């Protein structure tokens, strides 16, 4: 409910950015006007002065609840005042009144005057769904609703005789239903079609030349954003404080460039239209990014911390992930959602989550979690070029780490793991900040216990590179998965299940997992250290195999 409001804001954002003169209209019901997304979207549209019209069809009933039970004011249009936006209530059964209000709003939007909220008070002549017995409505109310039939009222007001037209249309509708009925069912074997857009060639990756140049993980992410924005003017970045917290004007001295400084400097090169500070409205601006993505832009959203994404889970899970599939492949959603993730920085229970398996379990989105600067740059460039929504997780402990960082633009394939150390006794399967940990553990296993460990950096969690994992474990016969999430229903559990299905006969020991504790992330340093996977725990787990 209400999810579409932010999509329209995003479409208007695309229109304003591309300068194509279009206006976006969002239709929603009275029930949706009590959703948070309504508030966030109207605020966003108002501060950005976007060409969007919000049309609230107030039919008096949200499912079976009358509007007076759900809405604290009589006229929903009154809520426009909160945003300094015009708000009008019109008789929605009066065709001409609605047309006039809409024409005024559209004209205003096209002239750069920003959004309008139109509340069209209408009647609901039927139930909430077909077959709704409507016991909650009185006979009188239903009868009087039918008396407001907009077609009858149009006929009365205009004096136009619609008899012949009605008969003709009725025949057309019968014919259309007949044709639809005669059509075949979709092929059940094609149930997986449309989930994601896969390019014909598996990957057109442009591998970087070996480099002597070193850089930090933070710099890698920054360079990828800058390269992507230079290459394609439809790429925009948006998020809280990303242009530096200086509002819409030129950056002030000491501007931050986001909480982690990743976007610092982008505003100077690309301007405030393409480097957008947002209000603290995760659902509103993520939804707007989805809308902008389906209307011609390639937005990269900075969500700051992964722990904030539950606020925009509808936009990720119900909108971005499902639009392509539900619309039969008509719509690509080229969107990247960047966020810092992970524990170890004493950031406490609500700023430390990884959410790997939460995101990786959603069909329709891809999930990337790089472990080093070179991969981060190439994978982020691929994510921006990808036509699907991609969640890009940046582990907080990695921002300051350094490594080789090729110059220029290059893309690394999504869905391809990397064997970062070869070995023969055990496969250590790791992701993000777990990779440097696994490498250190591999050194210790080799030095102290004469055990040869292979280390796989997953890099992409969805799609998962099952081939590389299987090939390694088939060779070593032992698998240990390192995952910073709590163990239940984790990424580690998923990989263990896949290996049990595909490599059972080759296993020389039970598959093992090193995960975080089965608790929220604790604040106190000794507890947080004990909560997390560690080199010690990896070595210990391998020794027990």
């Amino acid at each position, binding site marked *: 409910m209400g999810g579409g409001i932010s999509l329209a804001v995003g479409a208007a954002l695309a229109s304003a950015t591309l300068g194509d003169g279009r206006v976006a209209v969002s239709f929603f019901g009275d029930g949706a006007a009590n959703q948070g997304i309504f508030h966030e979207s109207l605020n966003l549209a108002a501060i950005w002065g976007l060409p969007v019209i919000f049309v609230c069809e107030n039919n008096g009933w949200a499912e079976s609840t009358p509007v007076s039970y759900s809405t604290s004011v009589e006229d929903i249009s009154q809520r426009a005042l909160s945003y300094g936006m015009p708000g009008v209530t019109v008789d929605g059964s009066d065709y001409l009144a609605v047309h006039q209000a809409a024409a005024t709003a559209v004209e205003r939007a096209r002239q750069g005057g920003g959004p309008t909220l139109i509340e069209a008070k209408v009647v609901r002549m039927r139930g909430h769904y077909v077959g709704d017995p409507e016991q909650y409505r009185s006979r009188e109310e239903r009868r009087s609703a039918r008396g407001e039939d907009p077609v009858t009222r149009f006929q009365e007001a205009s004096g136009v005789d619609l008899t012949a037209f009605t008969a003709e249309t009725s025949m057309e509708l019968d014919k259309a239903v007949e044709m639809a009925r005669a059509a075949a069912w979709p092929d059940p074997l094609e149930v997986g079609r449309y989930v994601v857009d896969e390019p014909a060639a598996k990957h057109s990756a442009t591998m970087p030349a070996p480099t002597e140049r070193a850089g930090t993980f933070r710099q890698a992410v920054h360079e990828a954003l800058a390269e992507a924005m230079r290459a394609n003017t439809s790429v925009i970045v948006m998020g809280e404080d990303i242009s530096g917290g200086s509002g819409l004007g030129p950056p002030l001295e000491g501007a931050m460039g986001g909480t982690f400084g990743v976007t610092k400097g982008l505003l100077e090169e690309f301007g405030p239209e393409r480097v957008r500070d947002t209000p603290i409205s995760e659902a509103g601006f993520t939804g707007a990014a989805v809308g902008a993505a389906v209307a011609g832009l390639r937005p990269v959203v900075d969500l700051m911390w992964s722990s904030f994404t539950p606020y925009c889970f509808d936009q990720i899970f119900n909108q971005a992930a499902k639009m392509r599939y539900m619309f039969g492949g008509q719509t690509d959603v080229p969107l990247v959602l960047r966020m810092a993730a992970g524990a170890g920085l004493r*950031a406490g229970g609500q700023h430390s989550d990884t959410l790997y398996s939460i995101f990786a379990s959603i069909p329709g989105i891809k999930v990337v979690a790089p472990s080093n600067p070179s991969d981060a740059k190439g994978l982020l460039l691929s994510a921006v070029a990808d036509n699907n929504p991609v969640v890009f997780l940046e582990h907080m402990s990695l921002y300051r780490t350094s490594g080789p960082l090729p110059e220029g633009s290059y893309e690394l394939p999504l869905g391809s793991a990397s064997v970062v150390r070869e070995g023969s006794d055990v496969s250590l399967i790791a992701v993000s900040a777990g990779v440097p940990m696994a490498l250190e553990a591999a050194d210790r296993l080799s030095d102290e216990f004469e055990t040869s460990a292979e280390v796989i950096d997953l890099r992409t969690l969805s799609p998962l590179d099952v081939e590389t994992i299987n090939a390694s474990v088939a060779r070593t016969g032992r698998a240990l998965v390192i995952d910073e999430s709590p163990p239940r229903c984790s990424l580690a559990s998923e990989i263990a299940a896949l290996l049990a299905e595909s490599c059972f006969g080759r296993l020389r020991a039970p598959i093992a997992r090193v995960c975080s504790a089965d608790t929220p992330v*604790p*604040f106190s340093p000794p507890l947080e250290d004990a909560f997390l996977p560690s080199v010690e725990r990896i070595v210990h787990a391998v020794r027990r195999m």
Partner: protein
Amino acid sequence: MVGAEGRVASAIAPGPDVLVSWLEKMIEIRLAEDKVMEIYMQGLVPGTVHLCQGMEGTSVGACGALTPDDWVVCTYRGHHHALSRGVDLVGFFAEIMGRENGVCGGMGGSSHIVDRSLGMLGSPAIIGAGIPVATGAGLSAKLRGEQRVAVGFFGDGACNIGTFHEALNMAQLWRSQVVFVVENNQYGEYTPYRDSTALADGGNIADRAGAYGMASAVVDGQDARAVYEAVSLARARALAGEGPTLIEAQTYRYRGHSRTDPGAYRPPGELDAWKQRDPIGILGDFLITEGALAASGLETMWERTQVAVDEAADVAAEGGWPTIQQAEGFVYAE
């Protein structure tokens, strides 16, 4: 204060002794926050901290209008709320250091200083997450027929998040016994609030109450007495079944958003201008002018409080670390 019916009323003025105790509390908060910075630099504080120097008037004035039975929901910038509700200084510092003698046993840290025995229900580090919680607490009080209210404190940045809208609609619809206090400290993290908040020309955040048919007030958050008056009236309205109130307390944080933020995005002179209207200075001057406090008494108050703060921090630093066995017991209720 303007009610939904346009009614203006006044609250019972607190006596001199009460005002002196408020002043002492504000000084305690100021010195405690300075101390947090000091022990941070000594490496005793893990993670980051969000300090509130300059905002003492809002919490002390608001909490001055409450009884011990009232509920409070605050935010990650919540040190002043916690101390205003009477959180013990040792438990306060120990929590910030992650020690077992902290008010949450070291599980929460600086952002989550919650003492349930003092009516504190939470201090989310997720923007706006506390607003519906306060609404629900106020509803609980109403349904159970209790003479208490819930106060939801949140910042200007939270007024653009969906929970603000959803909670205010429900609170008004259900006449929840809740008072919403927006501490408008002018910046949502690093962004001036007017750049992120669409308002009518010259309008205030409190005007958004109109979208819910709710009463509202704008007060000088640097004047604890003004905040007290607005919250007192709102509390009385809520208990009389007249519904919630949205109060905007205009204030300022002297420090940046978090420990690493120097606040360099602020225009030159802005901080100094606000410091001219320091909440401790305003109440102190008032009490001296009224003859309720001598200048020497004020000086003694600062000295005495400094000693108490230093001692508490020292005791806190002697606390042990929590154990994993303790922590595991906190995940589920038995």
